[in-house]
């Protein structure tokens, strides 16, 4: 038996619904009609693959990949983990992209309206391709919390954005990573779109004191789970054939 059938149906009650009025922008950007449910076809069970040749040596080092010679300011971190599917299998060769604010909570973006200073040595983007076991890691600084235009005093908890490809387009996912112990997680309207505390906790990275680098960086572990595939048991083969 192998897991090469269609993907498990996405659990829409586990994910945020589209319409979440506490996050105001969702009000006019949320589809209102029922989604069309279709079994997987080849169009969803295939997906693009990215070769390691796209990666530069500092793509996974946000501390140095923007500044010429200088290093980004902030609490130095290693973020590491695995990309798994729902069956617990590590997914090798998967492109993971990440982006974040600087240590003051400021993004390098023309639409940014927060007064925290830009860091001349911090761009805020990186990427990695998972190894044989689905593992990835990168070096960065801890992003600051920042205020954002929703209600007048809404702040985002410190977070890193992730985009993950998987092996098939059905697995395509964008999400965010939060930091263990941050009280602001539970005050955030965007986090609060997720229906259950149990689901939210799967986005909170654990502080890992065993993975720090000596006199250098703290470490956080963040595993990402993508949709898994069904086993094909009776569909193709009978015993002895």
């Amino acid at each position: 038996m192998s897991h090469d059938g269609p993907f498990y149906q996405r659990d829409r009650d586990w994910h945020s619904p589209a319409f979440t009025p506490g996050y105001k922008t969702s009000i006019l950007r949320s589809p209102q009609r029922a989604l069309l449910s279709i079994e997987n076809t080849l169009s969803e069970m295939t997906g693009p693959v990215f070769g390691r040749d796209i990666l530069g040596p500092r793509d996974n080092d946000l501390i140095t990949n923007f500044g010429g010679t200088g290093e980004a300011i902030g609490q130095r971190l290693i973020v590491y983990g695995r990309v798994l599917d729902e069956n617990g299998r590590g997914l090798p060769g998967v492109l993971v992209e990440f982006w974040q604010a600087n240590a003051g909570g400021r993004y390098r973006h023309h639409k940014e309206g927060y007064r925290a200073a830009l860091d001349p040595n911090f761009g805020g983007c990186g990427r990695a391709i998972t190894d044989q076991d689905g593992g990835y890691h990168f070096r960065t600084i801890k992003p600051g919390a920042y205020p954002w235009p929703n209600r007048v005093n809404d702040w985002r908890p410190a977070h890193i954005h992730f985009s993950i490809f998987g092996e098939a387009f059905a697995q395509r996912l964008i999400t965010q990573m939060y930091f263990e112990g941050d009280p602001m997680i539970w005050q955030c309207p965007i986090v609060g779109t997720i229906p259950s505390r149990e689901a939210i906790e799967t986005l909170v990275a654990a502080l890992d004191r065993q993975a720090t680098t000596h006199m250098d960086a703290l470490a956080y572990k963040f595993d990402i789970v993508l949709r898994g595939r069904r086993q094909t048991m009776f569909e193709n083969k009978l015993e002895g054939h």
Partner: protein
Amino acid sequence: MVQPLKRRKESPSQTAGPYVHIGTNPNWVEITGVWQGDLGLDLVAPEAKGERILVKGRVFDGADQPLTDALIEIWQADAAGLYNSPQDKRGQADPHFVGWGRQPTDARTGEFRFETLKPGRVPFPDGRLMAPHITVWVVARGINIGLHTRLYFGDEEKANAEDPVLLRIEHRARVKTLVAPRSEEQGLPCYTFDIHLQGPDETVFFDI
């Protein structure tokens, strides 16, 4: 108690937010020098087989205003109907055609634009051929989980009429939200695929 099934749960989606392009298209938002060129801009190498086409459109919110901060990805088969993916076991797709593209919507007009190929037909699980189509995925600030839909081609009336996916749409008036009309631009066929997140013309989105 019963034995546990021990399956994991998918990581919950979170919005791509207003700064998604920092991660996906850093050069486009003037974060240059981290890596050369953003991924997904070029789908078609000169040697690729098939008819060159343009695909363009905008994404409208519930107040009919185009989104100027969205990110659009497309995924499609090559001209022979094969996907350039190890998961397609039917044969080797055209190595000169990636099949995956990614574009931000224009910061002023909201328009997205792809130069690609007309895809071939791909079979549905039961063997019937689907009409040529392009998978379209939309993420943006205010969208909590990526929206998955399909572009079908306005000049493929016969194939569209027998497409197993389009046939599943109960409200037949909504089929047209997935069919991009054809025009000409720069001497190429150009298909316009406007996406409506809400309202009477709300696009059919998929749970797939």
